[in-house]
């Protein structure tokens, strides 16, 4: 039982990390109806830009890259870079594709992901970097001593961050004027334009917010596994979460993340040995497929009804 709980809780916490990446997808889909294939590349770009600025600032001012002022300055500069990226995407890609079919926009984001990956490595180099956020990646001692459960402090902290982020974003979408405008844009570009919603500004805002989410995801995943190209693969973990939670639901990303995280870990441990192991890469997709058959819009997605 203790082992089961360890696997289960570890899976839930990993699921929160997947949800963190899934959030970026949800934000952009909610506001523009685009499944942003470049979200993984944005996570990589954000983390590499942060580390790049940290290194340079530390060198220029003779400080440690882990020093607090360096951290906050690098974070601010990275946020500025993500806003710039959002503006560039809107100005040179989205503006040309207003009211185009979703598949066109999706294809454009595939191209965008290659561009972002190339720009990131071209600008900051291909080296792998370590990232220390000051949160120890070790078991919570009282859980270990009292229940013999190994639960990572780092994963717990990351889960709290993801939870807070979701709460803030849910409130933002529900109760702010910009949030309502974002939802209107998602429903119909032309209708939103006709009632005076500044489509271009809204797109910059939503891509910038997705950029900020990418920074958080990039820092958490970068601190966990290193800042390297493989951060782009975090998107692969987010896709089944999206299918399960629904493409338009912020809380759905969390619930989907929790289900995917826990089930993939349990499947790996209890089913894996019978099929050669290493099944946690495809099991979430099978699970998502089953959900698709039952609820095509996901657990919390908006039901799509067409008049005949």
């Amino acid at each position, binding site marked *: 039982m203790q*082992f089961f709980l*360890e*696997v289960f809780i*570890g*899976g839930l916490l*990993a699921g929160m990390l997947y949800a963190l990446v899934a959030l970026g997808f949800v934000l952009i889909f909610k506001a523009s109806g685009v499944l942003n294939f470049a979200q993984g590349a944005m996570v990589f770009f954000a983390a590499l830009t942060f580390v790049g600025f940290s290194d340079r600032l530390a060198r220029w001012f003779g400080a440690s890259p882990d020093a607090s002022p360096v951290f906050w300055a690098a974070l601010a500069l990275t946020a500025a870079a993500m806003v710039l990226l959002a503006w560039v995407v809107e100005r040179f890609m989205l503006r040309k594709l207003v009211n185009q079919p979703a598949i066109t926009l999706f294809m454009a984001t595939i191209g965008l992901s290659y561009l972002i*990956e*190339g720009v990131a*490595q071209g600008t900051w*180099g*291909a*080296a*792998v*970097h*370590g*990232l*220390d956020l000051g949160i120890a*990646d*070790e*078991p919570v001692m009282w859980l270990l001593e009292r229940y013999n459960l*190994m639960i*990572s402090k*780092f*994963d717990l902290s990351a889960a709290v961050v993801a939870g807070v982020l979701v709460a803030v974003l849910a409130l933002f979408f529900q109760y702010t004027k910009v949030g309502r405008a974002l939802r209107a844009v998602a429903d119909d570009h032309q209708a939103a334009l006709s009632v005076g919603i500044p489509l271009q500004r809204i797109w910059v805002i939503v891509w910038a917010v997705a950029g900020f989410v990418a920074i958080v995801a990039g820092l958490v*995943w970068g601190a*966990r*596994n*290193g*800042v*390297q*190209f*493989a951060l782009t*693969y*975090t998107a692969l*973990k987010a896709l089944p979460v999206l299918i399960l939670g629904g493409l338009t639901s912020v809380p759905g990303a969390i619930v989907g993340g929790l289900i995917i995280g826990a089930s*993939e*870990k349990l499947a*790996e*441990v209890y089913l*894996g040995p019978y099929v*050669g*192991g*290493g*099944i*946690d*890469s*495809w099991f979430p997709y099978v699970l998502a497929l089953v959900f698709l058959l039952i609820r095509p819009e996901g657990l919390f997605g908006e039901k799509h009804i067409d008049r005949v």
Partner: protein
Amino acid sequence: MKLKKAWLTAMAVATVWGAAGSAAQAAEQYIGLPSYRVGSYAAGGTGVFGGWIDYMKLINERDGGVNGVKLVWQECETEYNNARGVECYERLKQHGEQQNVLFAPVSTGITFAVFERVAQDKIPLLSIGIGRSDTADGRVFPWVFPMIATYWSQASAIVGYLGQREGGMDKLKGKKIAVLYLDFAPGKEPFPVLDRLAQKWGFTTEKIAVAMPGNEQQAQWLQIRQMRPDYVILLTYGVSNPTALKTAARTGFPADRIVGWWWAGAEEDVVPAGEAAKGFVAGAFDPAGTDFPVIQDIQKYVYAKGQGDMQDPKRVGSVYYNRGVGHGIIYVEALRLAQEKFGKGKPVTGEQMRWALENLKLDEKRLEAIGAKGLMPTLALSCADHEGSGRVRFQQWDGEKWVPVSDWIEPDRELVRSLVEESAAAYAKEKGITPRDCSKEQ
């Protein structure tokens, strides 16, 4: 008359100029480099190909080339992708009038993909530390050179190292070893050797797969925790290395009881894991360090003049970089040998290069003369043996740098060679290949 004289003079000048030009062109040796500087494995690609290119620059700058033949190269970006690797192979095959004389993709997948093409095109395929282990049998695979050590030799050396740590191979009896492997072809390549050695020495192995890319391993390490093994052999690559070390620390498994293969033993594999990597041991056929005279020469002749290939000069002397220098040394030494046999001061062909690789011998004396003593093991290839060494060294990460913790460890040659011959013979039978009779070849 004057006009005729001027015309003749012009003709003569043009002829001499042309001849000089073609002589200058002839005094160049071309090699095509299928590098990977972007994408998931760019850290490895920039290091290995950076080191190789820097060594060629050193030879050009310090020695004026190989017997006066300048080394030239052309890169093609593979992104460590098999399809792109094949495309690069075709693109790099010919360069003006010169054919590529060596193809070294530093990727097991691309090695497999061009495996049969190299024999048709007569271009030797260099697969140092990668590729199929049975290609060490040169009688069946005349164009493939899995030099220094194959995955099978490496697996045997890892077990040998564990035996040394325990105080003797017999002490491995009853030990439990978890093998955590990335679920791709190279990750599974060492299994036959590990299984036979487990039988021979009486230890047990439990193999646990990590799906690509391996950026989440909580379930695997919880299984290892429950299993309570004496050691974990780590056969992972890229992001799965720091992830393994971090997750091991998170689940309380000590890093010094994890022994990785050489694709887990670069700075890029341990730096992102921070404190969790301290004590981790990994195999190497190219130890890290800048104390080797050849690396110091590169700094003096190449970097001091601002001509280095590495974007970050601090990476000079790192594991991947030194691996690239090792590739460069083998290439240049084979070139030198080929020139001695087929004509000094002239570029060589793929067939001549193959002869040289098969007859290459790098003993301690020669390695010392090159300034690479300790940077790589001694080598002695033959028609039948395309590996030439099989020795592996182990180094431990102290949080700052790799520290050697063993001398060159010999693999179980008898066992590895019998497996190589068995597998190569099966391949020959399947493909209808008649193995070469090495006693008839010079």
